[in-house]
């Protein structure tokens, strides 16, 4: 690497791997600040996808021919690579799904629907993404289990005293978002896991916004389940991961039935395949899985600790720049406290959708809306916020372009 500072990301070199960042709109180079929604895909991952279809494509497991064997080995080894990336104990603990949402639903259906009932409690937080909030809410309605929400304060911190109050011996499942996609808060999931385990409850960690940008080790945080999406970490769409502790996955019922997930079938009954295939019914996400393993290589080569620091630095810089203005309110932890690489904000007199439309004129891509945390936005008293979110290729310069464009929006609307 060209950099003299080994701890700093060589952003210029990284950008070379992302030709999409050279696109221009109305004469401006795109400043892609919508990474919490989806990240861009580096050349090595694009090459892996193209290479797979050019040289290896075949269905897995069932075939004895050479292509099928190669595809099967690559697909199975992709599970090993992802397991290593999150500190799991082998491929048995790593299930490939469609996305974080499906990983949440897998556990909600396979465990929640079959094991929970009246008198049981599910404890989650006020800052959950809809993928977890709506899912557990429906499981509560269908099973009679109560759903309780750990309070979030005005600065986006979980009220841990409230957590200790809510999590009791009636609690069966604690489901928490690791890094909030609205506040950017890094929640103390390890502590929450300890509290959950003290009461013999499982803990499900939504890692959609944490696994992409910081070292996450399932053993360190003692998660029973961890979910994340490939498309938020340099991988393709169409693949998510469900990590589960082996003994839990062994006991749990399957979610989807069909081919690949069975061992032996008669007209009367069927038995289930080994882990993790028991949870991967039908033709799985073969190419996407292999590409995700490549994305893990790509990110590890850069270094997850460096990525964490880079994201925090960009978030702090954004807070500092937006803090210069009295008409801007930012959400989440105050400047100086670590957060994931995202900042949601509101500017007086300019609706988030109008603002993002104006920013688009400057080729600054941000997200406006409720970011799939609608009840949280209602609690904050705003219908929509604007969110800038960063990744390995973003620069302070791009944040300056965002801040400069705000003047234009003020001139028009205020």
């Amino acid at each position: 690497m060209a950099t003299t500072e080994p701890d700093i990301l060589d952003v210029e070199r990284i950008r070379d791997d992302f030709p999409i960042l050279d696109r221009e709109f109305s004469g401006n180079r795109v400043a892609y600040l919508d990474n919490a929604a989806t990240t861009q895909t580096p050349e090595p991952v694009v090459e892996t996808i193209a290479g797979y279809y050019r040289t290896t494509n075949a269905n897995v497991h069932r075939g004895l021919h050479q292509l099928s064997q190669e595809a099967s080995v690559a697909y199975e080894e992709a599970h090993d690579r992802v397991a290593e990336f999150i500190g799991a104990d082998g491929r048995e603990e790593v299930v490939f799904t469609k996305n974080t949402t499906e990983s949440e639903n897998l556990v909600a259906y396979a465990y929640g629907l079959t094991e929970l009932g009246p008198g049981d409690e599910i404890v989650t937080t006020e800052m959950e993404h809809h993928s977890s909030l709506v899912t557990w809410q429906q499981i509560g309605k269908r099973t009679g289990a109560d759903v309780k929400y750990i309070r979030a304060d005005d600065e986006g911190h979980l009220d841990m005293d409230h957590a200790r109050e809510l999590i009791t011996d009636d609690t069966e499942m604690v489901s928490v978002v690791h890094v909030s996609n609205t506040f950017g808060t890094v929640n103390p999931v390890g502590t929450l896991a300890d509290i959950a385990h003290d009461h013999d409850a499982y803990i499900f960690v939504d890692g959609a916004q944490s696994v992409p940008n910081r070292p996450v080790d399932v053993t360190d945080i003692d998660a029973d389940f961890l979910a994340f999406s490939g498309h938020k970490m340099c991988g393709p769409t169409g693949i998510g991961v469900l990590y589960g502790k082996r003994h839990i996955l062994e006991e749990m019922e399957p979610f989807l039935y069909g081919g690949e997930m069975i061992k032996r079938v008669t007209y009367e009954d069927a038995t289930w395949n080994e882990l993790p295939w028991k949870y991967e019914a039908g033709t799985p996400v073969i190419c996407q899985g292999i590409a995700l393993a490549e994305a893990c290589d790509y990110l590890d080569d850069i270094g997850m600790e460096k990525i964490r620091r880079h994201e925090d630095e960009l978030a702090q810089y954004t807070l500092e720049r937006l803090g210069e203005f009295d008409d801007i309110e930012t959400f989440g932890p105050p400047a100086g406290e670590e957060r994931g690489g995202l900042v949601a904000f509101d500017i007086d007199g300019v609706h988030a959708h109008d603002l993002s439309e104006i920013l688009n004129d400057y080729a600054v891509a941000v997200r406006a809306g409720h970011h799939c945390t609608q009840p949280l936005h209602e609690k904050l008293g705003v219908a929509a916020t604007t969110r800038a979110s960063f990744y390995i290729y973003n620069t302070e310069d791009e944040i300056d372009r965002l801040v400069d464009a705000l003047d234009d929006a003020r001139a028009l609307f205020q």
Partner: protein
Amino acid sequence: MGIGGSDMYRQQILDHYKNPRNYGELEDPTFTHVGENPVCGDTIRMDVVLADDEDTIERVAFRGDGCAISQASASMLSEELAGMTVEELREMDRDDIIDMLGVEISAMRVKCAVLAEKVAQDGAEIYFGEKDVDKTTTED
């Protein structure tokens, strides 16, 4: 440049957004109806007074909260509707609203533009007993 961006915010739209016409409530509305655009959080409430013929729209007022497109559209519509008949209101469609706004609206924002029109139309249909909804949403 594509459709959208600051092109959408011509003077007329900004003027209606910053100085909305007929903003508020009417004393004895013939009908009142509310609606929202759940994705954006735009909300609109419309009060309409019909003449004794139960057909001619005499006055319209609105209240609301949301983006410039949704609020300017409601303000302009409140002026446009006065003097029209209920039948003419029912026949309005999104092209009429886009003509009224006088700018091209990007596909993602059409819902914002038509919210007020849909609220007024649903309000009329509910009043004449042809429909039964509590709240109009642009998702339907």
